[in-house]
């Protein structure tokens, strides 16, 4: 609840508050199947697809969801965006979801280990880290090493979440020791601290930098190649609406879906 509230708030800043509040509300209510007495043929997809997806997928999946609803009239896609670990925990805890898209194989494994996924998860995109700095990069950050400079306020994701694990991997690979001012609980809150100018830099995903627009400036660093995250997607075993869920996964993996995802900054698998 805390998370969804924060998420809603963050996006309010981005200017899509009304839309997000709507998805956030409906995602908590999975029984909300819009089964209007419409004269639809039996082969057509209908009902609600509930997608649990990593926070970093928020922008691109929201777009794909609308696309899916347009292509399949009568369907509705509701999202629950959050930290992959938290989402995985709610799925294994019995949350009624159709699709799970995680930010790392490790978090997907939480679900597959409990045999809650139907079939094998497929990697559909990859994500690379980038440094987010204040607009105009006033501190002239040009490498990962620059972040270790004293006096620079850097936030990292906590090691327990995928973006933090990846950042740590990149730092270890280049033998750098970095003491941040804070280990944030997910990638979006790390970015928010830079957007609000409370921190000077954060190590986040490329896609997040892109989604933040001109509120932050992205600095690529070569070490990020050592810490690329695979994003797996899977149909869930107890999916209430398996047919439509399968179709949504197909859309994500299709050329059209991949185009939307790479537009958001994701890499092809």
């Amino acid at each position, binding site marked *: 609840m805390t998370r969804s509230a924060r998420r809603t*708030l963050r996006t309010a800043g981005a200017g899509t508050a009304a839309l997000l509040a709507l998805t956030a509300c409906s995602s908590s209510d999975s029984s909300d199947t819009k089964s209007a007495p419409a004269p639809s043929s039996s082969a057509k997809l209908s009902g609600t697809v509930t997608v649990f997806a990593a926070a970093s997928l928020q922008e691109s999946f929201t777009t794909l969801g609308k696309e899916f609803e347009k292509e399949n009239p009568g369907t509705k896609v509701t999202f629950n965006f959050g930290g992959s670990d938290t989402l995985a925990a709610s799925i294994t805890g019995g949350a009624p979801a159709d699709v799970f898209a995680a930010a790392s194989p490790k978090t997907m494994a939480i679900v597959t280990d409990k045999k809650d996924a139907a079939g094998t998860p497929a990697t559909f995109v990859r994500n690379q880290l980038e440094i987010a700095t204040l607009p105009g990069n006033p501190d002239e950050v040009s490498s990962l090493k620059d972040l270790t400079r004293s006096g620079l306020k850097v936030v990292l994701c*906590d090691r327990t979440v995928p973006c933090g694990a990846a950042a740590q991997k990149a730092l270890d690979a280049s033998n750098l020791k970095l003491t941040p*001012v804070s280990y944030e609980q997910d990638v979006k809150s790390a970015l928010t601290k830079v957007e609000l100018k409370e921190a000077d830099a954060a190590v986040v995903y490329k896609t997040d930098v892109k989604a933040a627009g001109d509120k932050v400036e992205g600095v690529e660093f070569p070490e990020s190649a050592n810490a690329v995250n695979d994003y797996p997607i899977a149909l869930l075993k107890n999916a209430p609406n398996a047919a439509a869920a399968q179709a949504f996964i197909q859309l994500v993996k299709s050329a059209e879906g991949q185009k939307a995802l790479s537009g958001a900054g994701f890499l092809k698998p």
Partner: protein
Amino acid sequence: MTSGDEPDAAADTLAGGPRPGRARKTGPSRRQDRRLRGRGVPLPLLLPALLGLAFLLLPLLAILVRAPWSTLPDQLTSAEVWQALRLSLVCATSATLVCLVVGVPLAWLLARTDFPGRGLVRALVTLPLVLPPVVGGVALLLALGRNGIVGQWLDSWFGITLPFTTTGVVVAETFVALPFLVISVEGTLRAADPRYEEAATTLGASRFTAFRRVTLPLIAPGIAAGAVLAWARALGEFGATITFAGNFPGRTQTMPLAVYLALQNNPEAAIALSLVLLTVSIAVLAGLRDRWMTTS
């Protein structure tokens, strides 16, 4: 019979919390209350009451049942746990002290003076109670952050930045805990007879002396109750803290934050940490409750 004792204890806590006037009843009458209550409890009251009690206790019971007792010593001897616990206690106590310093006068102002817009002020004072803590954290960032409307002056004039510091944790905790103290003290002040103060002033005491020598001792139990509530709220603070002060072990990582992050990849550790927080909270609430009850 435990199920018979516990509703009594819970009812006492409630009466002693926001309305300490009732807690100051003399011994015999309280005992009488208890006897009366034990004799004829209507079933339509008893059943929902027990249901409510079970609902409150069940999650706590679940923690006890699921606690990893065998690995508990290992989970709890790590330096981070003690660091987080110590920080939690220090910050919650500091926040309570700040609440006392500014909250008691604020409550006095609301209870004893009349000024235009007092109703609105009272509503605003209680706002952090209903505000989602994360919203509180964001508001604090926008006000006191490095780039905030007040924070930027703190930064440029004094070089003080609050986010990501232990002081920031205290600020966030004070923000959410202050209403508890103000409401509690204001309620006690309204229940306390102002004629004692008036008598003191007619005898030559200044308004402040009357407050210090007459009012303050009179409402001490209410202040203690409010302080305990504020302390407990501060100890459990999560949303505003992680938003405003961030999360760094030893500096801003309090127990609730440690629990939340442990839950991401080590649920057993999270349960163990929850158990510690639970024990500390119960110990202090129980201990202090007895103390303020006996002061009367």
